[in-house]
């Protein structure tokens, strides 16, 4: 219903108290900071805080620690933590380093176990190959004339090896593969072994010596290997347990650290707006009145700071931010306003107007009890999913139900209930007439709003001379009355003289709007070349008068879509009539879905178009700046 009243607050305090104060009061307050230095530029000895980088790297490090202990969404973890311990940057860094060190030792162990397990796995594969041999491993690798080697080479090397494998002095037998390596055995006559070994070493061959670890025949070795494997797996389990314990016991600490780091970031962010002298700090910003009332008692009792409040209209070059405030019913329609732009501080909040008019226009165009209910449910579903348009869609649904009763239409059937008011298809002319009248009323209300905005911003030309001000209002309404009268009685209601006075005076007023503004601002009366001014203004006026007509006619779409809606369903009924039984029901259901989806969308857009183009344009600039208080800021900046 309104735009929140804002006050401009300036706070001064001792410099050494800055961090504590900011954390206590400012960080989660409704203040939107403004650059202190530009506000207080006439004060000597004031300077910016020395450039201070936010500690994003620290936040990142803490986040990766958090990830390790399984807190992916640390910023949403709602843990009731004992009160904040206040950290300095150095303390934080030390704490984080300690944690990181511990984590590193865990990950290195994990890595080691993984590597060893992998190796054992491939050894196992190899031993399974040799299982039939009843030879001691030691002697197997130390034959006199043939050399055996077991090990791994990178996959890339294996591809290079393929280039000359056909006439190579060794037999290569791949055993198994993992992600990066091929494990293989090669054997070669002793006389070539030196050459072959050196070629393999240039393929990055890494030899794995089985005999170093295992004794006996392959079968015995396999047994030993399995024992080792189980020991290793046990160790791995223990490690996992330890990591779990580590994670459990450090949860709170990490959350604390994270919050502290975020706070440090906040402080440094706030510093960028603040100013300071040798011994004191200055913060300035906008604050809504109710937020101020929350903050006041605490600041008042704080002896270390003083603050000054100023009204927006006392500040020449600072514009307050805009926060819309509406009750539950109208709130959803703020979305539509925001899509266009926010009002200026001294304009009316158009949300209520939009809510009522959109409701009416949508219903007029899309009146159906059943389909409206479907839209309502869809809107509620979207609201649950936090989609901002959900509210608007539910509103549209309700209005559709209301008009459905007025039109007597349920899921397109016109014969289930009686129309409380009118059946569009049977009274086409009435419908068209109603639509145009609605248009006239809506355009008029937009003009009234424009004049109110003019009064609020004390803008005389906007009130009286504007095409959406008094001049336009008189002209428009006299024309409307004239047309209606002529339509009824086939003659003009008043003599030519009166006609001239009533129509020409407003036209002249619009014509001289710009010169009048110039006069008010002590500029030259007619600034540009006279001829250019006259021609341009003349055509603009011509355009204005034409657009009164076209904008009014534009509202005919209100009834056109209502007819369209009924017509479309007739087509579907005809289609459904061609099939028998179940098929026709399916067709009616599908047709309804089509109408709800397609027409609902079109009608929604048309109503929005009327809203923006025919109405908003008349009274609303939409160049306000959204209010972004500190407490609503996204805390994680990585």
């Amino acid at each position, binding site marked *: 219903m309104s735009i929140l009243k804002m006050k401009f607050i300036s706070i001064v305090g001792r410099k050494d108290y800055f961090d504590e104060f900011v954390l206590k009061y400012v960080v989660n307050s409704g203040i939107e900071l403004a650059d202190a230095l530009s506000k207080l530029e006439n004060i000597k000895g004031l300077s910016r805080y020395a450039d201070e980088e936010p500690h994003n790297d620290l936040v990142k490090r803490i986040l990766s620690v958090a990830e390790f202990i399984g807190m992916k969404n640390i910023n949403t973890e709602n843990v009731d933590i004992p009160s904040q311990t206040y950290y300095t940057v150095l303390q934080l860094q030390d704490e984080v380093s300690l944690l990181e060190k511990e984590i590193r030792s865990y990950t290195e162990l994990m890595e080691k176990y993984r590597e060893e397990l992998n190796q054992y796995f491939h050894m196992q594969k190899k031993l399974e190959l040799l299982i039939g041999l009843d030879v001691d491993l030691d002697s197997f690798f130390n034959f006199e004339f043939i050399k055996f080697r077991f090990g791994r080479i*990178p996959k*890339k*090397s294996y*591809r*290079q*090896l*393929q*280039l*000359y494998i056909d006439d*190579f002095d060794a037999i290569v037998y791949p055993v198994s593969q993992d992600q*990066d390596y091929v494990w293989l055995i090669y054997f070669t006559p002793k006389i070539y072994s030196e050459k072959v070994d*050196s*070629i393999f*070493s*240039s*393929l*990055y061959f*890494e030899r794995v010596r089985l005999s170093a670890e295992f004794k006996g025949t392959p079968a015995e070795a396999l047994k030993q290997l399995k024992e080792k494997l189980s020991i290793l797996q046990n160790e791995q389990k223990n490690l996992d347990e330890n990591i779990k314990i580590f994670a459990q016991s450090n949860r709170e600490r990490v959350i604390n650290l994270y919050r502290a780091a975020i706070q440090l970031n906040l402080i440094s962010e706030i510093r960028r707006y603040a100013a300071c002298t040798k011994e004191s700090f200055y913060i300035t910003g906008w604050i809504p009145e109710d937020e101020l009332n929350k903050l006041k008692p605490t600041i008042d009792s704080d002896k270390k700071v003083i603050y000054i409040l100023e009204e927006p209209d006392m500040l020449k070059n600072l514009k307050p931010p805009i926060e819309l405030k509406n009750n539950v019913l109208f709130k959803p329609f703020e979305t539509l306003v925001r899509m266009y732009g926010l009002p200026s501080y001294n304009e009316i909040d158009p949300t209520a107007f939009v809510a009522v008019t959109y409701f009416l226009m949508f219903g007029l165009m899309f009146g159906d009890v059943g389909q409206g209910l479907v839209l309502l449910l869809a809107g509620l579903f979207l609201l649950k999913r936090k989609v901002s348009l959900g509210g608007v869609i539910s509103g549209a649904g309700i209005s559709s139900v209301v008009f459905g009763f007025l039109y007597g239409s349920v899921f397109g059937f016109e014969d289930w209930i009686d129309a409380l008011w009118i059946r569009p298809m049977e009274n086409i002319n009435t419908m068209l007439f109603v639509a145009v009248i609605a248009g006239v009323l809506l355009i008029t209300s937009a003009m009234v709003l424009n004049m109110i905005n003019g009064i609020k911003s004390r803008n005389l030309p906007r009130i009286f001379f504007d095409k959406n001000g008094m001049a336009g209002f008189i002209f428009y309404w006299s024309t409307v009355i004239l047309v209606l009268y002529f339509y009824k009685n086939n003659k003009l209601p008043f003599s030519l003289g009166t006609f001239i006075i009533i129509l020409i005076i407003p036209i002249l007023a619009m014509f001289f709007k710009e010169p009048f503004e110039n006069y008010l601002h002590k500029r030259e009366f007619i600034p540009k070349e006279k001829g250019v001014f006259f021609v341009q203004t003349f055509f603009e006026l011509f355009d204005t008068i034409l657009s009164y007509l076209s904008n009014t006619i534009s509202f005919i779409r209100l009834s056109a879509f209502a007819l369209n809606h009924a017509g479309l369903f007739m087509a579907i009924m005809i289609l459904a009539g061609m099939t028998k039984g179940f098929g026709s029901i399916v067709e009616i259901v599908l047709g309804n879905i089509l109408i709800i989806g397609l027409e609902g969308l079109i009608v929604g857009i048309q109503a929005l178009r009327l809203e923006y183009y025919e109405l908003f344009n008349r009274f609303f600039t939409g160049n306000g700046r959204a209010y972004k208080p500190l407490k609503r800021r996204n805390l994680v900046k990585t």
Partner: protein
Amino acid sequence: MPFSVLSYTAANTKARALFGKLLTSDDYKKLLDKKNVPDIASYLKKYTSYSSILSEINENDVHRGELEALFKASLYNDFIKILHFLGGNAAKFIEAAFLRHEIEDLKMLISIIYTRRESELMKDSLVFLKKYSTLDYNKLIRSRSVEELISNLKGTEYYKVLAYFTGNLKQNSLFDIEMALDNHFFLSVIKLKDKLLSGSDRKIVTRSFGLEIDILNIMLIYRCKKLFYLPKEITLNYVIPYWYRLKKSQLVRLAESHDISEFKDLVSQTPYAKIFKANEEHMWETNSMTFMYRFYKSILREKQPSLGVAIAYLHLKDIDIRNIITVIEGVRYSLPTEEIEKYLIGVDR
């Protein structure tokens, strides 16, 4: 991907516009007439698109490292500009392909550490590592030895490539390390292109990298044979295991060749005969660059919007920068103009 054509149209328009700003043959002629480096710098500053990046320098007191760093920065800026016009997989691929410069810097850094030729000047030219890479430059630059550098690369993709060398460093390891890094780069790009790209994009990228790998492999085999007399197996272990218009058998035969004349005979039967004209070995590198230059230009002329245009432009810009550096070097050492001109890529003579 219905949007691909749209997005490429934008990226291509951008790339073509940028291409129009590269130096012309005429520019090079004028540069070659200059007597010293300050004059060259001031010409570039006054009359070419490099003026914006050179605006900060004092042309009377400028050295090569500084200039090179600025040029690289300008290449990087173009890359970012093009990246903004691409989305999704195409952007991912271009980013991966651009890692080439990170790898070049890494190779340079390793050779600085390996040969213990510590010099600030050389470190100055590691622009990509310093400014644009995700690698921790400060940590790397402090490495006292190659092993330490490798352990400082832990947690990056390069660690896997180089881990083997820890404890296995030998006399000729520097060459091995460089080859391993190149191998890694090209193989991962080849793998990525098949994963990320499809249709005409994949075709053109395959062609671009295929030609490059073929030429690199031929040069590499030549070096192995001529400088180190390596047997075929070891030679083939350096080769990037991918072949495009070169046949696998040709590659193996090249590696088997017993002397240089046999090598040259074999090369003359490959599609790349033009590059490796027998009598001008010292020009082979320049010829191969010219060959690629023509290929990139031909992509730029194609009507079909594709990722190739962006890639081609970045290569052409790279060549442009290389040419400027060549001119600067030549003028500094007072080589005759014709001599410098021989080494310029894609300049009409």
